[in-house]
């Protein structure tokens, strides 16, 4: 295939604007998929992806398209994760493309992720090709949406295809536009090989399979490749392109092409997204720009509800990590929760997805501690520490400077909710940056917010204050000095390590009080009363008491009641097993979970 007839592109959209449905239609109409293999939203493989309507992992597929001009084209569609947590992955996927199809919902218009992803695409010099979707809905307003695209993003949109990915209307127009509007890849086929890794997956038979876009040169089976960031070298055993439902070996990949390489790679950690692949025989001089090692932003303790399942949890994490280089974990022990793992995630969504997959795909019952961000602490002796676990937060007397991560948040909302959102951001220690009217009644707000304030329940709070109409996006901007304190929770006078967390001094009191209240609601009355205290250092700032229960006895116990009563006691003992015994206090798992959701 001529390089001029290749089109490498991705689809970008806000959540639910129809990205995956459009991808399905394109696959269908280019006959990349036999009808019998057609399953709704083919690119989103995982159950969670389908259910949540999001793409977690990037994927790619090669299609053939016979255009109206009579020529045959190769389309490489690279599906990108749509969420901010995976921003780096998105940027690497974009770097593998020449163009981006921007899907905008004709009933919704531009949302936070539309803009974030579009800017990212423009940053990577991609040709952005707008498409107005959901024309089948009666409330579709393409004129308004076109104007929005032109005014807000500043790209022409009047001749954007108006389609319905759901019904298949005008998909042909999209395909033709991909041919005419998106440039063919450049690159020198005779230069030393240089390919970008934009994803990798683990296959039990082939080892790690890397997905690449070849920029220059060629890579063929039998070449020894070098991954430039890690320096690791492997002998290629299989090279090919991604069919819609299976890998198709081709033996070679040339400049401009997208495909996969299998080289008996054991650890996914060796194959970092963004790294450059070259050959040992004829290596390129410089790696592709833009590579960085991604660091987890959010940490949380993950424990099996049943201590006996520790090994199962380890196995499950090992397996997930095979396919997810950004998931980190190391063993951790808690007096309250026993043996578990401190896990690092790219962001909240990533955390939720991992927890959900552990529970669903591996049938584990988990207790997770409140998510923590990474604090930067400078000690009086000049040493700088990064703290991701409240348990290891240093004694305040030896801290000379405490800093916390800050994000730049943008919120798109109908203007009627601005007041509520401002109030929320204010409560979350946000600093107002600016506010723009996108239209008469739609607003874009910018705030600087401590990451710590959005890892708890910011999404939920935002949703409930805007009836779900606001959209939200953020990017990490750095660290800022902050008055941080470690808040401890004591049950019956003993600190519960798993409930400690770091909080800004100004919100410590109210959060401590709410934690104590929540715990009171969720700790059942027991034989003896249970004092609950929230404390900073040695100072108690809130106190609640779970009163002792007065009566649990069966008044009658005659000949026929004895076995029945024994069964009752067994049940009661079983119930105790589901509780965590903290000193003399029994704490149900729900209590741990409830304090993670402190919405007011």
């Amino acid at each position, binding site marked *: 295939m001529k390089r001029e007839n290749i089109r490498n592109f991705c689809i970008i959209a806000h959540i639910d604007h129809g990205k995956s449905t459009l991808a399905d239609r394109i696959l269908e109409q280019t006959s990349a998929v036999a009808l019998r293999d057609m399953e709704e939203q083919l690119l989103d493989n995982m159950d969670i992806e389908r259910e949540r309507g999001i793409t977690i992992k990037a994927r790619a597929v090669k299609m053939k398209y016979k255009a109206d001009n009579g020529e045959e084209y190769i389309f490489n569609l690279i599906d990108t994760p749509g969420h901010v947590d995976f921003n780096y992955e998105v940027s690497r996927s974009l770097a593998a493309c020449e163009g981006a199809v921007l899907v905008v919902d004709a009933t919704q218009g531009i949302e936070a992720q539309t803009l974030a992803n579009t800017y990212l695409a423009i940053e990577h010099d991609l040709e952005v090709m707008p498409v107005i979707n959901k024309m089948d809905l009666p409330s579709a307003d393409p004129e308004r949406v076109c104007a929005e695209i032109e005014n807000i993003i500043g790209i022409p949109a009047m001749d954007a295809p108006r389609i319905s990915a759901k019904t298949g209307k005008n998909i042909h127009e999209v395909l033709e536009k991909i041919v005419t509007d998106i440039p063919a890849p450049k690159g020198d086929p005779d230069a030393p090989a240089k390919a970008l890794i934009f994803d990798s997956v683990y296959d039990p038979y082939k080892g790690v399979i890397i997905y690449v876009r070849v920029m220059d040169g060629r890579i063929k089976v039998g070449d020894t490749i070098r991954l430039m960031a890690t320096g690791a070298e492997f002998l290629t055993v299989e090279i090919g392109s991604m069919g819609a439902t299976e890998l198709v070996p081709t033996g070679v990949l040339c400049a401009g092409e997208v495909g996969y390489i299998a080289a008996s790679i054991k650890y996914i950690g060796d194959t970092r997204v963004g790294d450059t692949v070259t050959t040992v025989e004829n290596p390129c001089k410089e790696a592709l720009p833009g590579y960085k090692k991604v660091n987890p932003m959010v940490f949380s303790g993950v424990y099996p509800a049943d201590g006996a399942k520790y090994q199962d949890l380890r196995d499950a994490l090992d397996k997930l990590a095979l396919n997810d280089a950004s998931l980190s974990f190391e063993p951790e022990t808690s007096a309250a929760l026993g043996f578990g793992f401190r896990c690092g995630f790219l962001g909240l969504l990533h955390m939720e997805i991992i927890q959900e997959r552990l529970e669903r795909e591996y049938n584990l019952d988990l207790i997770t501690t409140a998510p923590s961000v990474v604090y930067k602490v400078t000690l009086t002796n000049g040493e700088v520490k990064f703290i991701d676990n409240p348990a290891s937060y240093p004694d305040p007397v030896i801290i000379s400077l405490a800093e916390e991560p800050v994000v730049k948040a943008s919120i798109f909302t109908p203007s009627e909710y601005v007041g509520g959102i401002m109030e929320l951001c204010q409560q979350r220690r946000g600093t107002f940056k600016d506010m723009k009217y996108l239209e008469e009644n739609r607003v874009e707000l910018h705030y600087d917010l401590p990451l710590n304030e959005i890892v708890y329940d910011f999404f939920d709070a935002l949703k409930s204050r805007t009836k779900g109409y606001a959209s939200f996006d953020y990017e990490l901007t750095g660290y800022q000095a902050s008055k941080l304190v470690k808040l401890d929770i004591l049950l019956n006078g003993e600190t519960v390590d798993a409930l400690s967390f770091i909080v800004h001094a100004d919100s410590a009191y109210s959060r401590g009080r709410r934690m104590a209240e929540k715990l009171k609601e969720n700790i059942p009355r027991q034989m003896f009363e249970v004092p609950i205290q929230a404390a900073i250092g040695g100072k108690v700032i809130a106190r609640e008491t779970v009163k002792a229960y007065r*009566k649990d006895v069966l008044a009658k116990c*005659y*000949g*026929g009641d*004895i076995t029945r009563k*024994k069964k009752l*006691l067994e049940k*009661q*003992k079983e119930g105790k097993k589901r509780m965590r015994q903290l000193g003399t206090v029994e704490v149900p798992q729900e209590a741990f979970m409830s304090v993670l959701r402190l919405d007011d």
Partner: protein
Amino acid sequence: MGKAGVYIHIPFCKSKCPYCAFFSKPGTSREQMLEYTDALCRDIKETTGSRSIEVDTVYFGGGTPTVMPDNALIRILNAVKDRFNVAENSEITVEANPGTVDSDRLIALRKSGFNRISFGVQSAQDSELRSLGRAHSFEKAREAILAAENAGFDNISCDLMIGTPYQTEKSLIQSVDALCSMPIVHISAYMLSIEKGTPFDCERIRSLSADSDMTAELYLSAVKRLEENGFEQYEISSFCKNGMRSRHNMKYWLRDDYYGLGASAHSFVGGVRYYYESDILSYIKDPKNCIRTEDNMPNELEEYTMLSLRTTDGLNVNRFAFLGGDSDRLAKLAAKLEKNDMGRLCNGVLRLTPKGFLVSNGIICSLLA
């Protein structure tokens, strides 16, 4: 170990009380009662066979045994006496509903050998009695008790319920006082427990009845008042004057053998717990065919702990340890109980206080965990 006891279950009553979850059938025909009597007598014969089983308590419970014709009860008692080796000084109890006995019947029962009678009085307040669906007034109950005394019963017990609809602390104390002023030596004071599937199992009754905390308060008041009236507590719900404990009930808590006969009756013989199915017709047809094993290897530690702590005789620490109990755990818990006035460990015996009795499930669980 003491001698065995015999329990006879009479699964009939005039009308079903709305809180009752015991097995009984109201409105059974006289004919069926007589068939049931035949079955019982046959069962007694088959149970004892040629063995001589020494017993010193016989207990007729229900249901309401006194809805049976007198001669039927007497026939059954005679069968027991014929087939079991019933000791001279045996305690022979019959449960009675104050509305189903009169002077003549009481005299007949006493004469035939019953020497203890237990009346389901429940309350001295007529309004409370009505809400419990009881067919008798307190006046009727008083008459029945006096008639029993006249008939020669000197071991009379009454049931009293705590935490029933409309009951207040004041009305409860009045009921206690009214009962204590009668010629009785024993009171069983139960906290109402609303059983699943009974007519009482509804929101309305719950809202009219004391909640769990209030019931606990009522219980403690009743215990105190009973003691002031000379009734000593010997088990969570049992009180007596002059040491007149229910010898039969004590067998349950001491894990002595007992032979339960009749539909739905439970037995504990030779370390095995078994019972008869709750089916009158099947029982009449073939009693032995109704027997089901409930537990053929009851955990002795568990049973000892749970049963001994019900009584004021308490739990013997050496015995507990001998059976495999964790005495360190016990010592720690005992200290906590003592601090909270829930129990006392004294001379190697752990005894619960009334406050401790109220949470004895939790205490037992903690001991056995």
